[in-house]
């Protein structure tokens, strides 16, 4: 039996229950127009995915290297105040990343172990579903959950909808917090953001376009001892390295029961 996505289920049952062609067509339209193309399960042509080896990422140098590479690649502002901190890839304690995997008898060393987290580029992303302007959408050709900073109205509904805390809002102009070199230039040509928009990890869509791996993946692989801490690849390609790992090792994703279908996997 083919597993039906929640969206398809909603579409069909709502159409049937209403028994109204107009009601049904509104819902169908809802599902096909949103996100500039449907974003339900199986609607993308391929899907980029990441596997994080939590053991290899235990090494602080590995985590530092990938977080630093991301900050430089995307001109992420460095804001220390947790109320306004902008995070693309960062670390959290195991017990908070995998709340459903924690029980009272786990030692603190496990509960508090640092784990790298980032946007999961979900198969069924709630942020995309709720965005009122299609400023965030799931890209059909590669499954990346994209952000259009030009269109975002800053309503922050996506932040309420994301079960992973993967989205950050620019409470003020971020430019003054972005690193510059001696000449006053930013580290990267990647546009900074304006105040009042939401941002998050984009799986380095701008690098993928040029045939490069995401900055964090490249950084850990260049680090002695960090090779393989992050693996990136295409889920629709049976020969990809991510598929090889997923079929041969025990991996988990965050909060499976919610049905969002995360595409960042963890070897624990």
């Amino acid at each position, binding site marked *: 039996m083919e597993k039906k996505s929640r969206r398809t289920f909603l579409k069909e049952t709502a159409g049937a229950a209403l028994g109204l062609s107009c009601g049904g067509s509104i819902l169908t339209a809802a599902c096909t127009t949103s996100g500039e193309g449907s974003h339900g399960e199986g609607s993308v042509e391929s899907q980029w995915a990441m596997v994080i080896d939590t053991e290899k990422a235990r090494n602080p140098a590995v985590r530092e290297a990938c977080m630093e590479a991301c900050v430089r690649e995307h001109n992420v502002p460095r804001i220390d105040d947790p109320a306004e901190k902008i995070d693309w890839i960062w670390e959290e304690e195991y017990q908070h990343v995998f709340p459903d995997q924690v029980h009272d008898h786990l030692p603190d060393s496990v509960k508090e172990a640092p784990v790298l987290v980032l946007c999961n580029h979900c198969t069924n992303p709630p942020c995309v579903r709720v965005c009122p302007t299609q400023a965030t959408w799931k890209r059909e050709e590669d499954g990346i959950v994209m952000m259009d900073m030009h269109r975002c109205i800053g309503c922050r509904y996506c932040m309420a909808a994301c079960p992973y805390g993967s989205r950050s809002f620019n409470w003020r*102009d971020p430019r003054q917090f972005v690193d510059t070199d001696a000449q006053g230039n930013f580290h990267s040509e990647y546009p900074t953001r304006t105040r*009042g928009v939401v941002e998050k990890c984009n799986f380095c869509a701008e690098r993928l376009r040029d045939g490069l791996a995401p900055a964090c993946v490249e950084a850990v692989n260049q680090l002695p001892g960090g090779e393989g801490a992050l693996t990136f690849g295409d889920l629709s390609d049976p020969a990809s390295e991510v598929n090889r790992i997923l079929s041969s090792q025990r991996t988990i994703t965050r909060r499976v029961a*919610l049905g969002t279908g995360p595409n960042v996997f963890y070897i624990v």
Partner: protein
Amino acid sequence: MLEAAFRGGKRYWILLGVWVVLILVGLFAWGRQFTEGLTVTGMSQDVTWGIYIAQFTFLVGVAASAVMVVLPYYLHDYKAFGRMVILGEGLAVSAVIMCMLFIFVDMGQPTRVTNVLLHPSLSSMMFWDSVALGGYLVLNLIIGAVTFDAERKEGPPPAWIKPVIILSIPWAVSIHTVTAFLYSGLEARSFWMTAILAPRFLASAFASGPSLLILLALILRGFTKFDPGKEAIQKLAVIVTYALTVNVFFVGVEVFTALYSDMPHHVHAFQYLFVGLHGHDALVPWMWTGATLTVICLTLLLTPKVRNNLKLLGPICAGVIAAIWIEKGVGMVVAGFVPNPLGRVTDYSPTGVEVAVTVGVYAIGFMMLTLIYKIVVNVRERMLAA
């Protein structure tokens, strides 16, 4: 008819002056927020919605509650509401305007507001909420203007308005339902993800909205020659009593489900609200105040002698409004963000700028309400004199 808004006694102009001053304070505060960003608010990466969205939610209820006078009057031909209906519609119009303004002031990029219409996303409840609210505003403006004009000319309203009025009844229910769906459709937030949220919203709306209407009617009775009628006010008090009872029941149902099942995700938000979580207890005094007010007001309302005493009804209605404002406007929105998806508890309290903007928006709404009611009262007083 409209010229009545430009003529009035000293008290009328002082009242308008107060609204204008408060609006200017709000505008000034919003100007600061616009230039510096939402950093001037108390919101954060963890609690991303605060007092603005909370007021929006509360006021959608006030707007929807106009149906509590429209329905008995037009569907059941309940004549006593004859002079009350236009007050309800006026309240609905100004409440919807305030709702829209609260959404607007909450936006990070307010200059892009038209994107909601230019790039509509039919799967977003926020899109449907803007459609529902916009439609409700238009419906009430048309109905209010047409029926009042007919009444002024002492003739029957045109026949085509009846279906429009009928349409406004389910539409009123829809605005608050869609507003509840904004929250209850989010798998990320267990506190909001409950099927009873929409019924609960409606119940609390039908308690707080008519309470506000009673207060306004009592004010008009006291300060003008226009009397919306004792029977109408007392009937509204009965409606408030029923709605508040149902709301208490719904909240109880929700609390039972969370506490009896004892599932951590469901318990945490209630813990945060009523006893504090991980040492964070910013909302605890608020929630107990709200709960106490609810119990006192409900007890008084359930006593017919007290409920029918118009002198006591005013303070009781103020209490009901305060209790629901705390439940919906303070607790409901903020607690959804606690703890955040990564288990962190972050307190929220509005800043001075946020409070000033909020007061400014309310002042705009109440200024509109003042103008609408002034026109209504003037016409009615003239008809009485004739």
